[in-house]
């Protein structure tokens, strides 16, 4: 039982990291109808940027900012200079997968070429472990959870209270109608990529801050879990991604704690395949959602 409670604690941390990543990923899909497989490697790149900042003396907060800013810029550039031109040429949906996969491979291997195959760590100091019964989390981990909650809240406010947020939702649902309503679609799309890129970068830094060491493949390894969380909730639905992240985060850590640590992602994927068989549009998607029928 105590293992279960401890696992729940870890599950919340993983869920937080996943939430930050999955929401960014799903926002990109929502606004551009694109499964950005370079997302994981963008996370890694941001993590490396934060690493360099760390080496220059930055603390965790500055690293988060650096990573987020780096992720934002890279994502924006990616959409403007690679994805949009290809989409304008009416590249097929799978063609875009090849494009984003190629970008992913390029980014990951440039990082490998630049930094080498070794493992790197952040110097952010050991934080104290706080205990409450069987729950044992470090201060940094609690910070991660708090950060994720704050980000989700901020995003919720953005989407529901601000003009930009509403414009983003409109463009996601019906781009041509949004354009017809006078929404500056290219600008809204750009802001969406900037925002989701920021989440991507922050998620990358947070992912690394929670593990002992990272390398050029870390973000990409995490990508599959991110995609799974987004798909579970219904691609394009931010709240779905949050729920998907929570479910998968808990499932993986509980499975790791109780059953087998090495296979923990396996349970997440098995759950995803099951859901896709029963309800391919995910938990929140509608039956006519774009992810389903061709």
């Amino acid at each position: 039982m105590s293992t279960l409670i401890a696992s729940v604690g870890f599950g919340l941390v993983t869920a937080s990291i996943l939430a930050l990543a999955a929401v960014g990923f799903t926002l990109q899909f929502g606004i551009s109808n694109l499964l950005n497989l370079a997302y994981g490697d963008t996370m890694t790149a941001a993590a490396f940027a934060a690493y360099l900042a760390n080496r220059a003396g930055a603390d965790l907060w500055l690293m988060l900012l650096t990573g987020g800013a780096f992720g934002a810029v890279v994502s924006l550039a990616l959409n403007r200079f690679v994805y949009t031109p290809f989409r304008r040429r009416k590249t097929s949906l799978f063609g875009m997968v090849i494009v984003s996969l190629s970008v992913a491979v390029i980014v990951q291997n440039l990082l490998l070429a630049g930094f080498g195959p070794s493992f790197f760590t952040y110097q952010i100091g050991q934080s104290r472990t706080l205990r409450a019964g069987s729950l044992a989390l470090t201060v940094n981990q609690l910070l991660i959870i708090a950060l994720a909650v704050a980000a989700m809240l901020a995003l919720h406010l953005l989407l529901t209270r601000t003009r930009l947020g509403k414009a983003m939702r409109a463009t996601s649902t019906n781009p041509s109608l949004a354009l017809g309503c006078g929404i500056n679609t290219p600008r809204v799309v750009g802001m969406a990529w900037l925002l989701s890129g920021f989440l991507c970068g922050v998620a990358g830094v947070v992912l690394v801050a929670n593990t002992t060491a990272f390398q050029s493949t870390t973000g990409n390894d995490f990508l599959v879990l991110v995609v799974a969380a987004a798909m579970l909730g219904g691609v394009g639905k931010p709240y779905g991604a949050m729920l998907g992240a929570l479910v998968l985060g808990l499932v993986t850590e509980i499975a790791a704690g109780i059953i087998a640590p090495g296979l923990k992602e396996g349970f997440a994927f098995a759950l995803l395949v099951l859901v896709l068989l029963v309800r391919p549009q995910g938990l929140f998607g509608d039956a006519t959602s774009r992810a389903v029928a061709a």
Partner: protein
Amino acid sequence: MSAAAVFYLTTLLVYVGVDILAVWSLNLQWGIAGIPNLAWILFQSAGAYTAAVLTLGPSSGNGGFQSYIIGARLPFPLPVLAGGLVAGALAALVGLVVLRRLRGDYQAVVLLVITVTATLLVENFPRFLNGPAGLALIPQPLSSRFASSIGYAWFYVALTAAVCAVVYFLVVRRITGSPLGRALRATRDCDFAAAALGKNIVGLRLFVFVVGGVIAGISGALLVEFITAWSPGGWMYVESLVVFTAIIVGGTGNDFGVMAGALLVPVLFNEITRYIPTFGSPYLVDALQWVVIGGLALLFMWFRPRGLFPERRRTMALGGPGTTVAGPGQAGVEAGRAGASQGSGAGTSTAAGGAGSGL
């Protein structure tokens, strides 16, 4: 020729053969039928692992440092055939789950997740296929029959070539050159229209997915019996991108174009790195190789998405209005039907011709 040169050449030729089988299999699935099979490498691996565990003999052998299932010592060519069959069965299973009316990119990502899950399973159940270390010391088939290893090397080249020929004439050409291939291409171009014309698109896709899977499995089995080792590090999902790039570069849908792609992408790439002086550390050349592959894919997707040798246009004899044209090798066509359509055709052709000019 020195022994070293012979070994180099024969190894190269075996890789050429295996890569050609690989592009043919993915070309059937994707180039012809439009299935975005990002899990392709899984089927080559299934074939390789199957052949391996059917050739290795019991796992207690060799000091028992490897653990794996089965461990038979079947004579050649059974392990290779079994490799194809198991890969085909796996393709059937995966196809049944994934090949519904999901949109292309969604399907691709699900296949990607399946591939990653498979890697996870193999690595975490070491008694299945020896986990992350993979299998090694796989005995080469019929090697005892050959006195010299040079002789054996040439034998294996001939074997690979023979398999390629059989696969091409009995499978690839039979599909792509037939009305079945046409139906697959129609499904690729507009699946809902194909269905509305009576094509069972799910059945068609499953069929070609399995056939492609079998060929991929055979390619894996052939390869593993030659290089005698196989591990998870060698079949990550990115490996499928190499085959896709080969097809994109060579010519999607073109049987000979993709062969050129196989020569240019996987083979050329692996060989070029031999001749570049090693600069920096070994990982650097490897990493740059991948950067170039990704860049090549992007370049061709942008400048020449149809590839170097695009899909051939299949032209047919059309005849003019009012003339009777014999079909290929068939002069005595049902005169009634042909006559009737020709007759009314002749009658209305002037009117149609007039309207035609307004099109």
